[in-house]
């Protein structure tokens, strides 16, 4: 374990660094964390995630854990879920949270935005059909309100309804009374969160991590 840290030039690291864009130190630290979480096994499973105590009081814990096991986030155009992930998949999922580098062209920035929004979209679209239906959106809002001493499912429903209405108004503009809005597609999602500046908000600092002290 200690050896891994001091050998930055590990061949698999080079491969991973290229794939995910992390630096060698960051990969080393994340590898340490991976081993810690998985109790030195080769793969992580869902119950390993459930053991993290801080995560327990997070209202969207289930969705976060699911995101790690969702094939759509592995950048291999896969679909469906897996039961366990290796370090490479762990790293790929984490790389969605890397901040954009300072000197980026507009297209690169745009693609980073799309990627991050795609991650969010996948988290909402649990049944994998490419649209976020009203039911799924309701579920999202319910989860968000679940830890907050909920005022009941009704309020969550009305909030989700209002939100859905807004999306429909923005994306569709004009609809006949008989038409039915199927759900939020990825294009609509992009349009909706256009002003959200997700590329500057959905980031984690990957430096200065000292996992040895945090044995949780």
């Amino acid at each position, binding site marked *: 374990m200690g050896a891994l840290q001091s050998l930055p030039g590990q061949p698999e690291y080079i491969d991973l660094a290229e794939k995910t864009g992390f630096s060698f130190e960051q990969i080393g630290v994340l590898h340490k964390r991976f081993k810690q979480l998985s109790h030195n096994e080769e793969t992580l499973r869902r119950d390993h995630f459930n053991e993290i105590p801080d995560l327990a009081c997070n209202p969207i814990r289930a969705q976060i854990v699911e995101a790690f096991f969702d094939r759509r986030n592995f950048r291999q155009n896969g679909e469906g879920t897996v039961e366990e992930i290796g370090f490479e998949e762990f790293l790929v999922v984490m790389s969605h*949270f890397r901040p954009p580098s300072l000197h980026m062209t507009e297209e690169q920035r745009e693609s980073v935005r799309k990627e991050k929004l795609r991650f969010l979209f996948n988290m909402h679209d649990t049944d994998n059909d490419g649209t976020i239906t009203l039911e799924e959106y309701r579920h999202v809002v319910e989860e968000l309100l679940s830890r907050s001493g909920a005022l009941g499912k009704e309020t969550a429903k009305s*909030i989700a309804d209002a939100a859905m209405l807004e999306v429909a108004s923005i994306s569709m503009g004009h609809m006949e009374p008989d038409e039915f809005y199927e759900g939020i597609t990825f294009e609509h999602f992009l349009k909706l969160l256009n002003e959200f500046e997700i590329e500057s908000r*959905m*980031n984690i600092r990957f430096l200065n991590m000292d996992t040895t002290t945090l044995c949780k």
Partner: protein
Amino acid sequence: MRNFNIRGESVRDVVSGSNETWIRPARSTQEDPHDHHGNSTEHKKAFPVLAFNFEHVRKPFEISMWILLALLMKLGFHIIPRISHVVPESCLLIVVGLLVGGTIKAVEGTNAPVLDSKLFFLYLLPPIILDAGYFLPIRPFTENLGTILVFAVLGTLWNVFFIGGTMFAVCQIDGAGLADVDLLSCLLFGSIISAVDPVAVLAVFEEIHINELLHILVFGESLLNDAVTVVLYHLFKEFSHEGSVSVGDALLGVVCFFVVSLGGILVGFIYGILGAFTSRFTSHTRVIEPLFVFLYSYMAYLSAEVFHLSGIMSLIACGVIMRPYVEANISHKSYTTVKYFLKMWSSVSETLIFIFLGVSTVAGPHDWNWTFVVFTVFLCLVSRVLGVIGLTSIINKFRIVKLTKKDQFIVAYGGLRGAIAFSLGFLLTDSKMKHMFLTAIITVIFFTVFVQGMTIRPLVELLAVKRKKESKGSINEEIHTQFLDHLLTGIEDVCGHYGHHHWKDKLNRFNKKYVKKWLIAGERSTEPQLISFYNKLELKQAMMLVESGSTSKLPSVMSSVSMQNIQPREPPRRRAMPSISKSREEEIRKLLRANLQNTRQRLRSYSRHDLMIDPFEDNVSEVHLRKQRVEMGRRMSHYLTVPANRQEAPPVRKVGFQPEHQVFTYDDAESPRSAEMKPRSAAVRLLNELPQRSDQSDAEPNAKQDDQEDQLKLSRGLSDPGPNQEQKES
């Protein structure tokens, strides 16, 4: 016969006055009895029908005249659009001040009123700072706090020593006639002139609408550098008499800095908590709620000033701490009052400050020294640019979102100086140096406000700096903001990294669990943020609807998408229920349209009344209102998501009879229908559904009866709440 009793002073004295007190001795009033005695013994004077007694009202009169003048000027600028687009308001106001000062000087020859430091620091500055602090956008502020602090503390320190040191070197040049300016005086001067001024920054940046990040960086810096300025100013002022500063004193200065800033924040914190706690109990005396906000904040400022702590930081801390709890407790009207009073006062203050700056420029004794002034202006610019560039290169190592060159330029260019520098200079002890300093300070202020203020707008456009995006209060964005917070916290936990989000989350949970229970009244204490956001949004929309009811257009609906479009499609058999004939439909349509028109007409005549009549303001229970809103949301979704086939009666409309509710519940009470009422065409849709809601075993007569009943209820419901209260109780 009429007798004019004119007091000793002439009208001329009305405007003259030094920066001393405004109090005139009362000797003039004592003359009265003498006059009367004297006159009455000689011949009986007629009772003075008209008398002229100006002394009596002199002080408030002059103050009001000044304020009125300032506001009329402000009004004038906005009527002439061409100028105000090119020249920022602050420049125009200073010019007005110059003109007024010039006029007074020409007419009088004596001194015009000058910007008294006491007046400035105790009366003019606090409203502006409170307005800024209370409405400080917390999220960008805390996210960039590190950067802001570095700019505020290190940036100002760098400015002070660079300008002070270099000016001292300049003063050593022979032939400049500045040999008597020693190092400490230079450093003192540096400490006065270095601080970025919040008033000037606000005045200029407000008009150019740059993006939030840059705005909060420059503005936050201008607020937080007050502590540094206070400490350095007092330090150098104390020691400029003695002529030297020892190392021990310097160390004490550093300690003093921490005491001043943290002490100021602590004082503000205490008053903020007190204010929040007090607001918990004000549900029965709503009218004085805004006063608590103002007074606690002002007390925080004054208390900090007593101990020479940083009053500005105290005021900011008080506003920031107090706001979330107070807003949860006070009524909507009090919130509006607080908002508008703060904006009003800060606007008046700002206007007065700039006008007085102009007047003081004309009035004050000047000592123009070319070398000193030119070098000061030049050095201010240079040190600002160097400071920003140098600090940014350090800061960018720690920032996720780096500052680009454009950002740096705007931050450097936005370092405006203003009235605080002038007032601090004015507080110096009188000496020849003081006049020279004041001249230089005024020149720098003029330069930054005029040159930089006027050119920053075209520069922003030229450099294509990102502008402020218009936020429409989208509920989707709010949902995703919260979602993202939790997501990032979760990922940080997975990484095992105790970062920014982790601590923020912990603070939030602590806040929710303990603090809110103490400081927020009633059940609002457990309301999650998303729900309060949603409620606010609904309230806003309802009020918009009421206001727009007097016009025929409904601006809030821009698309014809309604709730119906997003609900999951029911099985077709329910929809194909032809229970009313075409002719019936036409009748109903006509009736409904007529009613809606009637409503609109009635609204036109009644809406003003409703919004003004609030006799029972104090008795209105806000909790009830909120409950009603939640209820409305519940009922709306209940109704809409379970369309046909429900065998129950239309939900009972609980109409609040308190007049306050009439403003809001015009829509709320009619909740199941109101959401559908918004688009005209939806009215017909609704009617199509009405028959479906009634009993399934519909025979024509039944349906008809139900329709009419519903129809009546609908028309009653839509009618103005005022006169028809009794009818509604059905």
